[in-house]
């Protein structure tokens, strides 16, 4: 059902139940209440387009990897997120708390996967197309790490050291106003897990680098710095500081 359509029906239904509530058949009243109270799933999520072609990040990340990563992996997270949200809607409407809880794993995994990859594509750009110029981000990096190189070293080391699947992140701490390096396991999203606002992430799941780097994750992590979209990162910091 489209969002617009649902709006019209909802308003009419609310009006009807308000005026006639005591006269509605109990089963009708119950199903209306369920319908009205069902958590809006926000419609269907979709796979975002990339701002560049699949081959734009070569030779650091091959077109083959980009196509697999975007059109298969990310797409699967989006599809499965939509499935999980539909199941959540049904469970909420039915008041089935047990099912609501059992869906949490799938929501975190697929929702996290969708969030993380969306951020990832936006914080990458063709090699040497952006640079970290003098500004708030550069200043904050110097203040919190001592310099860009020190931050790069810490973030690379942490990302490389992730056991199994996960992500390395540079995040903004709203409480302290500082930036920090953090890692998350699997598809656990940064903000929901740690409270840090993501500035940029590095996917260290094997699917992110296996085609191009095989088991040598350090080579991939060291190379990806050339692809960071510093304009996007600056903007994220500015938004987070508002």
């Amino acid at each position, binding site marked *: 059902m489209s969002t617009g359509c649902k709006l019209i029906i909802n308003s009419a239904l609310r009006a009807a139940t308000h005026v006639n509530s005591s006269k509605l058949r109990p089963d009708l009243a119950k199903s209306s209440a369920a319908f009205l109270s069902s958590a809006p799933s926000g419609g269907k999520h979709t796979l975002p387009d990339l701002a560049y072609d699949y081959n734009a990040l070569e030779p650091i990340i091959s077109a083959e990897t980009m196509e697999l990563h975007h059109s298969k992996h990310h797409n699967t997270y989006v599809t499965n997120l939509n499935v999980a949200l539909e199941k959540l809607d049904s469970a909420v409407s039915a008041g089935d708390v047990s099912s609501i809880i059992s869906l949490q794993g799938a929501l975190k995994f697929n929702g996290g996967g969708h969030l993380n990859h969306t951020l990832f594509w936006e914080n990458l750009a063709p090699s040497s197309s952006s640079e970290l110029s003098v500004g708030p981000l550069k200043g904050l990096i110097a203040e919190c790490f001592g310099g860009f190189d020190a931050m790069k070293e810490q973030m690379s080391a942490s990302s490389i050291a992730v*056991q199994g699947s996960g992500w390395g992140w540079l995040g903004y701490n709203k409480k302290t106003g500082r930036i920090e390096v953090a890692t998350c396991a699997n598809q656990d999203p940064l903000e929901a897990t740690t409270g840090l606002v993501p500035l940029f992430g590095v996917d260290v799941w094997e699917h992110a680098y296996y085609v191009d780097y095989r088991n040598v994750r350090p080579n991939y992590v060291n190379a990806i710095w050339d692809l960071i979209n510093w304009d996007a990162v600056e903007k994220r910091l500015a938004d987070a500081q508002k």
Partner: protein
Amino acid sequence: MMLSTVTVLVAFIFQGCFAKVDLPALPYDYKALEPIISSKTLEFHHDKHHAKYVATTNSMITEDSGLSDAPLEEIMKQSYGKNAGLYNNAAQAWNHAFYWNCMKKKGGGKPTKQKKLMSLIKTSFGSFDAFLEEFSNAANTAFGSGWAWLVFDSETGQLMVTKTIGAENPMNVNPNWAPLLTCDVWEHAYYLDYQNLRPTYTESFLSKLVNWDFVAANLETASAKSSTQEVGSEL
């Protein structure tokens, strides 16, 4: 001066020879599991991934006089929950050695020749197909890097399917559990051959690769061990 240097060298080499976890050779050549698992995958998986876990484990235990001569399972037991770095590498060394043996050329199908195993699968899961479904589900729903396992539970005398994350081995999760069969679902196990299609890899593993003789032998060992323990506790 020179004598003590020589002594130190000899001691170093001596220790190197004995304080070691081995990288076992594959029980078959790289091409043996084609086309289900390519020789390229086996080569990388064994010679790079498995080898690195072994090397890292060895470099971490040379310092520790308690562990440097211990068998791998003891290293895992000692480090579980205490030394994540050591556990992750030691357990991965064990898991991979076990995994290679879980597969063979022209494997898979049903364990019809292994009567005791087949019978226990039926009583534990209801049917062989029910076991396949549960094992596939465990393999396909591990949210990240991990392993799917068939284990023997010495407390119930039944079989169970379980899944673990990262390097975790079921015998460390529950000392009553003895691994009988495993499938590696870290992406490096299947990425070159199946890319993102993990379910296809799992299905192929089950239908074409499983070495049921090895699984049956593991069951023999596990149930013999559990009955001697029972006898011991009655005395």
